[in-house]
Each structure stands twice: as C-alpha cells, then as structure tokens.
C-alpha cells in the first residue's frame, strides 16, 4: 500500500444536497471523495428511509439499508422547503455552498423558487446541478420518471427478459446511477472550470438521455443498418459466445471476441471435431450455427464447476466469469484482497460492511469516514454552529414544523 498523505480531492467543498433518488448516487460519489455534503431532509425524514431492505425487516427510518448505502459521509439537517421560513434558511445555506444539487422537474423548481438565479444570488461561484428525468426542454420535460421508466425509455427494459414474458427490470437502479454519475462528472468539470474562471454555472442532466447511453451500440447500429435486436435471445437462436452456460453448480459466461481467444477455447475443450473446423474461426459463421457451438460448449461446461471454469479459463486468457450470487461476490478472493468493503458501525443498525469509494485515486483517495446520519442529526451543528442561529431559534423552528 502506498503511503497516502493527501486529503480526498473534494475536501473543503460544501455540497447542499436536496436530491431525491435520482441524485443519491451523485451526492454519494461526491461525499466519498471528501466533499462536505449536507443532506436536507423533510422534517419526517427522507423518503428513502422508507425504502427496503431494512435491518431485520423492521421498517424503521433508521434501519433502511437503502438509505444507509447512499448516505455515508453525509450530514443531515431537516428543513421544510415548502414553508417560507424553510426556503429562507435554504437560500442562506445555498449562499455558503459550492454546489447545490436537486432533482426537481423544471415546473417544480420554479414553483419552489429554487432556480439558478435565486440560488446563486450573492454566490456567483455556485455550481447548481439539476439532475432531472427529462432535462429542461421538450414536450416531456415535466413528466415524472422513476428508475424503471428511465430504463424503459432507454431501450434496456425491452431487451431484458424472456420472449413471451414481461420485460424485466435490472437490479441496482442503473438509470438513476448513470444520471448520478454524469451529474458527479459534470460537477467536477464545473468545479475545475471555476478554479480558472472563478465562475459557477447551472448544469442539467437528463436521465432519459443518460439511459440512452447505457444500452450499448443499438442506436449507432440502428442508424447505420436498421438493425433492431429482439428481446434477449437466450435460447440459442444466435450466439456470439455471450451466453451463460450451465455448469455443475450454476452458470458461467464465456465471452469471445478475437480469434485467438476462440482458438484457445477450442484447444482447452480438446478440439472437438464439431467446432474445430477453420470456418468456426469467423464470428459470423459461429453466429449462424448456434446449435453446434452452444451444444459443444454446454457439453464441456457441464463437466466442470463454475469456479473451475473461471480459474482455468482465465489462466488460458479466455474471458470466463462465474455468475455469482451476492454472497459469492462478497466472499470472493478478489473482493477480500482489494478490501472492497470496509467495516462500519451505525448506532441503530450496528456493525456492518460498507462498499468503499470508487474509483481509487493513489495519492488522494476517497474514504468512508462516517456512517449515514440519523434524521436531523446535524441540525444544531449546521443551524447554530454555521448559520449563527440560537437554540431558541431552533425551538421556534421546530415548533412551527420547519425543521
């Protein structure tokens, strides 16, 4: 391990986090890279605190594992931004912030009076990021979209699932994830620009467009040749050696692109005559003869465990991977060696393993320094310590339901 003596790169940047689920991964990326992220929750707690899974399946706002994952390293204040007092406090917080992130639709943002003009008044260096379902223009700009809606419009849902069955949602909210990742990248670029220009700006991410980026090469290929793939051809109608193959104990995927990988695979399989002819060295030919190719490889894989195939296949420089469960991944030698998970403790959840920061910077790496905050845990610290309010002010705000 290298000796590290630099703080994470976003140390010293204050981020005001008004984001809903569309921006959770964004503010997590920034918080793990050292930014001081102050999460603004409505007085009853963020909606994510009601999202499963829960510790011991007990639906308690401090036991949502969904909330726990996304909110490490953040501080929490409660604030009702719909109330005039709440909005005034919010604008004051924004004046002290380097970055404000929200996920309102354009109409809602205007209704709340939280546009770039209002937020950046007196703070021209502010970077204001709006992570939105559809951007700020166009006929769908005020439509609602959750993760599965983004996935659906992005041509990821249509392709997932078995023909004849409903299209199938992926795990892990990848449309939210891609929008959040673009948001974090955009914020970093805007902060870099600010180091030179001194000026902030407003950025708008469209989840709908981000989802269009995830689906691989379908858009360029359709535009070029009209190719329109059907839903998951997983039954051997077509193959580029992409499919998972059954093994003695679950499945493994073998993915072949260059011809030498194909040759290595055929050698490893003991050169079965059915697929050893030179014509099989062409991907196009293999794709036209899936029953022969898939049949031979399935027969081979069935004689091994997925771990044997993984170890031996990789040794032979073939892209073989096991289809792991969550537990198999977390207990894998690679995850252990890289210390992908870090030990954490939460006052209500107790001890647990938390996913570490990505990506890994050698000299100024991200860190997980605190677990997710309790509801309003930092009200006093932020409102009294940083905005100069008195304890009486807090009592008054609490009584009127503002915090």
């Amino acid at each position, binding site marked *: 391990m290298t000796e590290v003596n630099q703080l994470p790169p976003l140390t010293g940047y204050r981020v005001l986090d008004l984001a809903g689920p569309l921006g959770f991964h964004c503010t997590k990326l920034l918080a793990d890279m050292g930014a001081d992220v102050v999460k603004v929750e409505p007085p009853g707690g963020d909606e994510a605190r009601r999202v499963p899974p829960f510790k011991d399946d007990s639906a308690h706002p401090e036991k949502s594992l969904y909330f726990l994952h996304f909110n490490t390293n953040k501080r929490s204040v409660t604030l009702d931004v719909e109330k005039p007092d709440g909005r005034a406090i919010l604008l004051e917080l924004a004046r002290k912030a380097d970055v404000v992130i929200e996920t309102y639709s354009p109409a809602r943002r205007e209704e709340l009076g939280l546009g770039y003009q209002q937020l950046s008044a007196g703070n021209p260096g502010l970077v204001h990021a709006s992570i939105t379902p559809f951007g700020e223009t166009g006929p769908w700009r005020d439509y609602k979209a959750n993760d599965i809606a983004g996935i659906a419009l992005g041509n990821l849902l249509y392709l997932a699932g*078995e023909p004849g069955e409903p299209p199938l949602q992926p795990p892990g909210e990848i449309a939210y994830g891609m929008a959040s990742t673009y948001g974090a990248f955009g914020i970093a670029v805007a902060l870099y620009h600010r180091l030179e220009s001194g000026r902030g700006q407003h950025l708008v991410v469209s989840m709908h467009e981000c989802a269009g980026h995830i689906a691989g*090469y379908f858009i360029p290929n*359709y535009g070029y040749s009209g190719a329109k793939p059907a839903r998951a051809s997983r039954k051997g109608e077509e193959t580029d050696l992409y499919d998972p193959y059954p093994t003695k104990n679950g499945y493994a995927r073998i993915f072949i692109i260059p011809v030498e990988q194909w040759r290595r695979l055929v050698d490893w399989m003991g050169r079965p005559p059915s697929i050893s002819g030179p014509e099989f060295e062409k991907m196009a030919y293999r794709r036209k003869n899936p029953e022969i190719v898939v049949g031979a490889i399935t027969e081979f894989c069935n004689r091994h465990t997925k771990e044997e195939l993984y170890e031996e296949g990789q040794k032979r420089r073939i892209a073989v991977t096991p289809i792991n469960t969550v537990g198999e991944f977390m207990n894998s030698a690679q995850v252990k060696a890289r210390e992908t998970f870090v030990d954490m403790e939460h006052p209500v959840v107790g001890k647990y393993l938390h996913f570490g920061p990505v990506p890994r910077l050698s000299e100024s790496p991200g860190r997980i320094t605190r677990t997710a905050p309790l509801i309003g845990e930092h009200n006093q610290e932020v409102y009294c310590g940083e905005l100069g309010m008195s304890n009486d002010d807090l009592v008054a705000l609490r009584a009127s339901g503002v915090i």
Partner: protein
Amino acid sequence: MSKLPLEGIRVVELTTGAAGPTVARVLCEFGAEVIRCETRLRGDGHRGEDPAKWNKNPDFMKLQRGKKSFTVNMQTDKGRRLVRELVKISDVLVENYGLGILEKWGLDWPQLKEINPSCILIRVKGMGCSGPHAPDLTYGPNVGNTMATTYLWNYPGATTATAEPRTQHPDFMGGVTGAFGVVLALIQRKKTGRGQWIDSAQVEIGASLLGPKYLEYSVNKREPKPEGNRSLVAAPYGPYQCKGNDRWCVIAVYAQDEWERFSNLLGKSGLKADPKFATHLGRVRHKEELDKWVTSWTLQHDPYDVMNLVQGAGICAAVVQDVEDQFKRDVQYAATGFLVKMTEPEAGDVVTENVPIRFSETPGKVRGLAPMMGEHTHEIARDLLGLSDKEIAALEDEKVLY
C-alpha cells in the same frame, strides 16, 4: 461563449474495448484533446478484423468520435519510445490493456512519474489492478457476472441462467466514473502540482449501485434473490402490456392521490368500488388481481397513448421503447437533439448519442467525427514529436508509425 473547461488538457489513449475509450471520449466532449494510439497490425475490437471495414463500424464511431488517431507499433522499441515522448507532454494517460502490458511499455505509474510527475494515469480494468484476479480478461458483460448483477437480473424463482439483455453498463458507467476520477485528479493537481494514478475497477463501479443488496447480505445475513419487477413502495408498478405486438408501458403509482387519479382515468367502476384496492397495502397485497384490471385497460391502447394519458394525470409512466421507437416515436429525443448525425468519410451517415448533460456556460458537445485509422499520425509526429517528413517516412517504412 467561454472556452470548454478541459481545453488545453491533452489525453493519450492506449485502449481497446469500451470502458477505456469512454473515459477519453467524455473528457473530449468537454474540451480535452484526445490522441488515440492504435496500430494497423490489427484493428481495435470495435474497428473489427477486416481492414476494409476499419473506418465503417458504427460502434467505433460512438466510442471514438472527436478523437485523433495516431498509428504506432508498440511491439517496437522505437514505437514505445515515441509514445513515452508523447506522454511526457500530455496531462492524462488512459489505459485498459491486460495487467502487465503497460509495465512492459514502461508507462505504469512508477515509470511514468519519472518522466512526467504531473501526469494523471487512469488504468481501467474489469477487476482492478490488484488482487489475485487483477489479470482477468473481462468484457463489460463479464463484469456484471462476478458482482451478482446477472444473477439478480431475473424473474423471481427463475431456474434458467439469466434474462439480462446485451447491455454493458459497467463499460459506459465505468467510463463516465473514470472520467469523474480524472477530473478530480486534475482538481487535486491544481493544489499540489503533482499527478497520480487511478485504479478504476469496472466491477467496483458497477457494484457500487448494488450497495443495498450487499448490506442485506452483510446486515441480515441473507442471500438476496432476483426480484423481477416487484415493488413494495408502488402499486400498480412495472411494465403493462399494451395494444400491438409485444408492446408495453411502465406505470408506477406511489401516493394515494395518484391512485385516485389513476383509477378515475381507467374509469372501471368495479376497480374503484373494490375495497381491496382502496389502500396502498391492499394494492400491494392484491397486486396480481390489480394488474389484471390495469392490463384490461392498457391492452386497449397504444403504449404512447397510455404514457401520455397516465402522465397527463400526473403519474409516472414510460413506454418500453425499442431502438426504432427511440428514432421514430421518442418526441423528447427529437426535441432535445439527442440523436446526432455525423457524416463519416467512409461510413457515411452515422447516428450517435449526444452529451446528456447541459452546462449553462461551458457546454460540452460532440466535437467531431471518429478518426480514420492513422488519420492524425503525420500531424502528431510532426507537430508534437517534432519529427521531419523524412524521419516520419522512415518510421513508416520500418512499421514503427504503423
């Protein structure tokens, strides 16, 4: 218009596949000059095996638009030396070959920092740069296997391997996350004057979205199972079959007021009168029966009509689009100009996806066509490496600039 934020940043790219090229492409869109090193010895995976098609593959256009192509043979000592010279005057090196290759070329961090200590190196690897499986050969779809995405992306109780589509989100999300890391390192360099290297593991980037699943295993000591389209927080929820062949529209009803508007929209008196569906709990408990009601309505309508009607009532709905829909019926993509047409010299018209983030002051953009193989070799050799035309010709003859 202000200059682009990353103008003046020079990126050298030693990559194949998609995740590495995506890091550089995203940086390019915000102003970086990207020099892609490649060789005529063989086409990059996305140029393809056949030299006649090197400049015609739309996959390649998507990944490489706006970059420069510098053909150099890294099997030769001279070729490696030229690339080291190039890296010496660059800000970022993006690499995603198998572990050990960069070391052999003298460009891993211990060697690179000796020739250019302010350079930022990003190494994009399926499994990362350390650990027993660091040398693994992986493509995007492999990565999702190890971290449990493939296992979880299935119907509840499924017995077949997978229903996941041919998508590579660890490639594209990995690329954007890598670019995020590079810009963070550029911010840090402003403070310290020094570069650093980034170990960007696609598996970790993809897995970072599955955090709640890992917590379930870690906290509740329970192996998460595929959940399909199940939700406890919304009902109706998921794709509903519409009029037409294999047409679907996603609907998600969260709040009570949304339910009231939704049931009014459907106008089915039996549904509204049934006390089973009066509360969220009832709707979740009787989801199957509820879905039949909803489907009896959606089946009568075109999916875009369903989307517009349901959205008109202020409720989340989205057509399950295929790629043809994205071109022909997605009025939002049409209005925002998401599908960008480029006319490539050999390929002709190619459509790729626009930058999905708009900046008010310094907007990124698609900055140009994808380069033809070796299109910028002379320019780079002459202008950046200071070689004469004669030297360039000799290096071409020797198959160094090749």
